[in-house]
């Protein structure tokens, strides 16, 4: 595992992310790891307490984590949201749009390619939790 790529100003969270089951069993944990297929809505009562949620991508083509991230951000989660696992450079821009602000890819990511990729699209067509203005909003003010 390479070091996490973070798009946050705060210090990295110390507590390691445990499984959803172990998180639900503890009263004071502040970090959790969600596997694809686990219902992220189980975390909704604890969003205030959580500082790190890691969402695992078992394969880059398994897109469940994008919805998990959106749901968390829609519900007001502001802590670190990390994508881990089979996270590739060409998926980062969409992950950012869904609210991920930290990445722990299995394989290293070329920083130059990442920078190009993240800065590429000036505009977007649809609203997400990243609060960027969709093109329709630019058209109609």
């Amino acid at each position, binding site marked *: 595992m390479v070091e996490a790529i973070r798009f946050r100003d705060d210090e990295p969270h110390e507590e390691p992310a445990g499984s959803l089951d172990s998180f639900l069993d503890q009263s004071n944990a502040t970090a959790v790891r969600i596997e694809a297929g686990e219902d992220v809505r189980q975390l909704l009562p604890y969003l205030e307490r959580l500082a790190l949620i890691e969402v695992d991508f078992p394969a880059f083509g398994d897109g469940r984590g994008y*919805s998990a991230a959106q749901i968390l951000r829609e519900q007001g989660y502001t802590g670190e949201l990390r994508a881990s696992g089979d996270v590739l450079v060409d998926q980062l821009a969409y992950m950012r749009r869904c609210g991920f602000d930290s990445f722990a890819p299995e394989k290293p990511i070329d920083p130059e390619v990442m920078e190009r990729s993240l800065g590429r699209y000036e505009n977007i*067509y*649809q609203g997400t939790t990243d609060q960027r203005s969709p093109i329709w909003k630019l058209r109609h003010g």
Partner: protein
Amino acid sequence: MYQYDQYDQQMVDTRVEEFRDQVKRRLAGEITEDQFKPLRLMNGLYLQLHAYMLRVAIPYGTLNGKQMRMLAHIARKYDRDYGHFTTRQNIQYNWIKLEDAPDLLAELASVEMHAIQTSGNCIRNISSDQFAGAAADEIADPRPWAEILRQWSSFHPEFSYLPRKFKIAVIASDTDRAAMKLHDIGIQLVHNDAGELGAKFFVGGGMGRTPMIAPEIRDFVPADELISYAEACLRVYNRYGRRDNKYKARIKILVHELGKDEYTRQVEEEFAHMKELGLNPPVEELARITEYFADPAFDTQASDELDLSDPDFAVWVDQNTDMHKQSGYAIATISLKPRGGIPGDASSAQIDLMADLAEQYSFDELRVTHSQNIVLPHVKKSDLYALWQKLDEAGLAPANLDLITDSIACPGLDYCSLANARSIPLAQKISEKFAEQGRQKELGELKLKISGCINACGHHHAGHIGILGVDRKGTENYQLLLGGSAAEDTSLAKITGPGFTEDGVIEAIETVTDLYLQEKQGDERFIDTYRRVGMEKFKEAIYG
């Protein structure tokens, strides 16, 4: 028709640059074919048996002469001088080189075209009624709604790695010319009691290995909630659609396994929350787009008189033109099913000619149909004869719309890496066999659809007569199906029994069509007779 503004143009231009970068990294070996695959697929590039195949999006099947001419140019410059119009109202090129693809996409972008999301497990090109804006029976033009959906679904960050591909169709009349209920989401525009236009949602239809007709899940979604409702449908699917088995991953399986009511309940729950998120463009955006689809400047004095003294012309008018909403005009369908030809194929010269004719006779508009034909939607009746003569000279005037030789066929084993059997040669043989005008005309409307494998790209489940190519111990074998329909009376065809050789299946088709003529009552079409008489009688005739 719709025109890009600076934003739309910038999006497709950026995509070209992005893909250029990705191709460069692939050719330099920086990414593996496995990693590259989803990237190229989202740009419509498939690796097929012999070469790369590129699928170009034609949103809701509508394009203008300039765009059509670009398609001809691409066929000439990058392919083998022809293109293949598909059941997704798109065009495919079969012989593309990977290193050429970025330049090709840049050329497309110069005429407001792209190949974005024409493949991959994402929301595909939105399809629609090929007669939109011209049909006498529509309550509104469905294309502005399709365009809203096109923009929303393009580069959608949450829904680009779905369990499987996702197809949406929008229609606006009770007559279904777009196989709406055989889509992942089918939308029919309807009026509510207050007279407002909204969307009726059908979810979970599809063909493939497990064909299903989409059930209605909501009778009215208002215009300003369309996107959040679609988001809710997609989110439930993205979270709970099966990912353990590619063949059970389409939304139809989820809807089927959960049951329509439970799926609907989950969608409504998600929707209740999503409609508050500000995801819907304002109604002004729909109004802005709708203006682009305003009627062209029809000559309201145009006459309905037609000189039908040329008998060949009269046959074509009878078969290939439809009633237009404006008196004095007709909708003309150019059949890409010449006798013995390859369904949906057109040469660059033919594509150029159709572009010219659209400019000259149809207010610069063309449509691609899911039956792999081309429509000139707005032709003045007084121009029909001149139009027909020019089409006829170019081999583009087969008078066979909706007849047995107007078949749909997938590319089959001649091109496709998934196919078990060839589709094209069979379609060609059937075309030859039934081409005599009198014979096919006597059979009337008869939708013949051929797929070269169970993935059903040739829509065999929805054929009045369907043919499915399978591999039987290393030889191509063809199963015969009867009774399907992709129209408003949607139904799924059933297999008659044991399969046939290529010649055998043609014989079987002759048997069932003979039986139809024998059993037919009144104005019954083949499908009507089949439904009344039932499968058994047809089976007996075939297998004795």
